[in-house]
């Protein structure tokens, strides 16, 4: 296990270097000059030049990259071009909102997805199975921004049960939970649908296995067979999907944050891209990439707990 973690850690480092290089280069090569955005439409060429010098954008790109990497290694992600805030500070002040949203969405996804998939499998071809499979297909297909806007119209504007936007209250308060519900459903729906489909097919496969028939033949109760013997074995692919989805959720909160006015990392990233705020874009992309890799590592570790046959040594 330790070997696995070490190996993954080295892979992560290599990956981050690669990603930082790609992001750095693509931001610098893409059209759009931070100086023209900061200077506004009335800036003269000499104003722009002064801004570029001030930001260090007049140096060769490779020199800028190495300067940047030297900073990152020392834990310095640089400063925002827009408002001179430290990038680490900007990220740490927003990350809790994104993490709350991703965890809440994951809970929504698991609570809906796993039971729906299992019941569909046990009662294959029943009305429940057909309708849940249809709903799952719809869940994957509905765009986030539309679902979010509709939920706001129904539950906030018409029924007035839940607030429209923001995660201003801490999540353990009633107010905070109310604020989380709509964004979590918006973001979690697609994942719930994917988890449901995966749980259903994994369960179907396991239920047909010999040892399940044997267990039933020995007289073990149906419910015990399903929830103890079968579920455990059907969980491996489901955990993979959950892990992957959690990675996506952490990096994919952008639209939900936008619709619900949540001040998270996704919005920080999108605003930074629009403003060509290079240091902030790089910082947020590195964060999302790191999280994705770490979540996947955790999934691998969880495998070993769920299925003792899996060993990494």
């Amino acid at each position, binding site marked *: 296990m330790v070997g696995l973690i070490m190996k993954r850690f080295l892979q992560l480092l290599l990956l981050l270097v690669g990603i930082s290089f790609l992001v750095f280069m693509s931001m610098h090569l893409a*059209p759009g000059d931070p100086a*023209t955005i900061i200077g*506004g*439409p009335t800036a003269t060429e000499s104003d722009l030049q*002064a801004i570029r010098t001030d930001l260090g954008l007049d140096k060769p790109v490779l020199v800028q990259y190495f300067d940047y990497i030297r900073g990152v290694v020392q834990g310095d992600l640089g400063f925002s071009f827009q408002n001179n805030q430290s990038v680490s500070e900007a990220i740490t002040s927003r990350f809790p909102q994104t993490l709350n949203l991703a965890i809440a969405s994951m809970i929504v996804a698991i609570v809906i997805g796993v039971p729906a998939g299992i019941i569909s499998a046990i009662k294959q071809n029943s009305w429940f199975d057909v309708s849940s499979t249809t709903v799952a297909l719809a869940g994957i297909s509905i765009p986030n921004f539309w679902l979010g*806007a509709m939920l706001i119209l129904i539950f*906030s504007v018409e029924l007035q049960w839940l607030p429209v936007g923001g995660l201003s209250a*801490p*999540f353990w308060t009633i107010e905070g939970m109310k604020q989380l519900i709509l964004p979590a459903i918006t973001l979690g729906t697609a994942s719930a649908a994917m988890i449901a489909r995966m749980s259903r097919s994994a369960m179907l496969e396991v239920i047909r296995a010999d040892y399940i028939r044997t267990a039933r033949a020995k007289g073990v109760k149906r419910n015990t067979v399903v929830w103890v013997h079968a579920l455990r074995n059907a969980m491996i692919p489901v955990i993979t999907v959950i892990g992957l989805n959690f990675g996506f959720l952490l990096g994919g909160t952008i639209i939900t944050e936008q619709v619900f006015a949540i001040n998270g990392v996704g919005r920080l990233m999108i605003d930074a891209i629009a403003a060509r705020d290079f240091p902030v874009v790089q910082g947020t992309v590195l964060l999302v990439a790191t999280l994705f890799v770490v979540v996947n590592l955790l999934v691998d570790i969880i495998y070993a707990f*769920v299925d003792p046959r899996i060993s990494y040594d």
Partner: protein
Amino acid sequence: MLKNFRLLSVSLFVLVLIALAGCSEESGADSGDDGESSSDVAQELTYATTSDVVGLSPIDTNDSVSSAMIEQVYETLFVRDPETMEIKPHLAESYENPDDLTWVIHLKEDVTFHDGTPFNAEAVKYTFDEFKSEERAAPRASLLEPVESIEVQDEYTVVLKTKEPYGPLLAALSHTNASIVSPEADKAGDLNQNPVGTGPFVFDEWVQGDSVSLSANEDYWQGAPELESVTMKVVPEYSTAVSMLQTGEVQFIDAIPTEQLPRLESMENVEIQQKEGTPVYYLGFNMNKEPFNDINFRKAVSYAVDREAYVSQLNGLGVKNNSIIGPKVFGYNEEAKDAGYSYDPEKAKSLIEENGFEGQEITLLAANRDMYMKMAEIVQAQLTEAGLDVSIETMEWGTFLDTTSEGNFEMTFLGWSNSTADGSELLYPNLHSDNIGSSNRMAYENAEFDQLVNESRVTVDQDVRKEKLHEANMMAIEDGVWVPMHHGIVTAAFDQSVEGLQLDPTGQWSLYNVSRK
């Protein structure tokens, strides 16, 4: 047993993660007071805007959201009356011109900054010196560029000397970015983070990306405002802001997009204010490229574009007027309203045939924001009708700014907010040959026109200025360098409990006279 233990540890791990997330949340949480119901008559107001302020220092910023907050915290020496559009003293008491190069400005006494620093001639000199300092690189430094020196004559008198006579000086001094800042606060820290002015509201907190909060200045020199606190909340999605207005989570939004207007109009608890404003939106030609530098081509395009039909699609949020200088901008004259080349498809077709422009391939460049896409689609249809082969290229704003300033386009759509409401500040940056390669994106060059604009700038007599601006305006209209698509209507929508809100034609507003009932 062992299996159960493993399951347990996995669940514990997840719980710990959640708890950790909770702990770090505490520091990031704000007061959480934006869910209050509108029936509460507390003197509090929440304003929603689609983007965050860049900073809160008038010297160091140049964007409209920052300006909206800066307006409430700081004040300028002069202000433009939103009704008459006349400039009148504000922090200044009066002024005189002993000669065309000298402006002696007497200041109001007994005004103090929020940090207790007295407002006086030293503060004005400090602010303007910083504004002009090369090191500071103020984005709107051009406003005071013609000012050569700022001298303190006595405690409450400051003397500005200009290199040449400078007509738009009062307009420049009434611009939000020329607000007077507390010298002590600026020396001690960063005004972007901790703004200190003389205005009716005092800065409390800025949660970056989320909100700015202000509270009433109880010692304000004109008397404390009725509102006790003001919060600016960042809501990136306009339709979400509209929902929040409907549910009472916010009480005030502005700059309404045309497509949201019908929804807002249908809401019972919401009032809408619309006012003819200073912004102008136009279709421009790249004068460095064929055939766009041909007056006959530009005339043909202008004849072909039915601006009445276009404006009718804006739900009333635009006015058709052929003038480049809009009706609410200094230098406008009724005569310009129908000057130039109004819609006449027959004339367009014959010009196109006579000059061999038939089937001419042109690309309309449009930024994918505001109303530019809509403009592009309508213009494309109308020009196709007239016999041209038109395609549209769309770009994200940052790329668009870069591409147009490099001159890599044929025809494009842009706007100008006219935040000083002065025609010189419109014609000089956008159409004067001094600014080719930067803000004169169409690369328009006309020596006679330049001369008129120069005269409008170096004359202190406002009547003469107005005449010069009108002449320059007519010349640019005749040259067909811009096809003005529409002149803006400034808008705001607010909860019916909000009273006393007055929009300025530049789109700015002050919350000083606002209260909740």
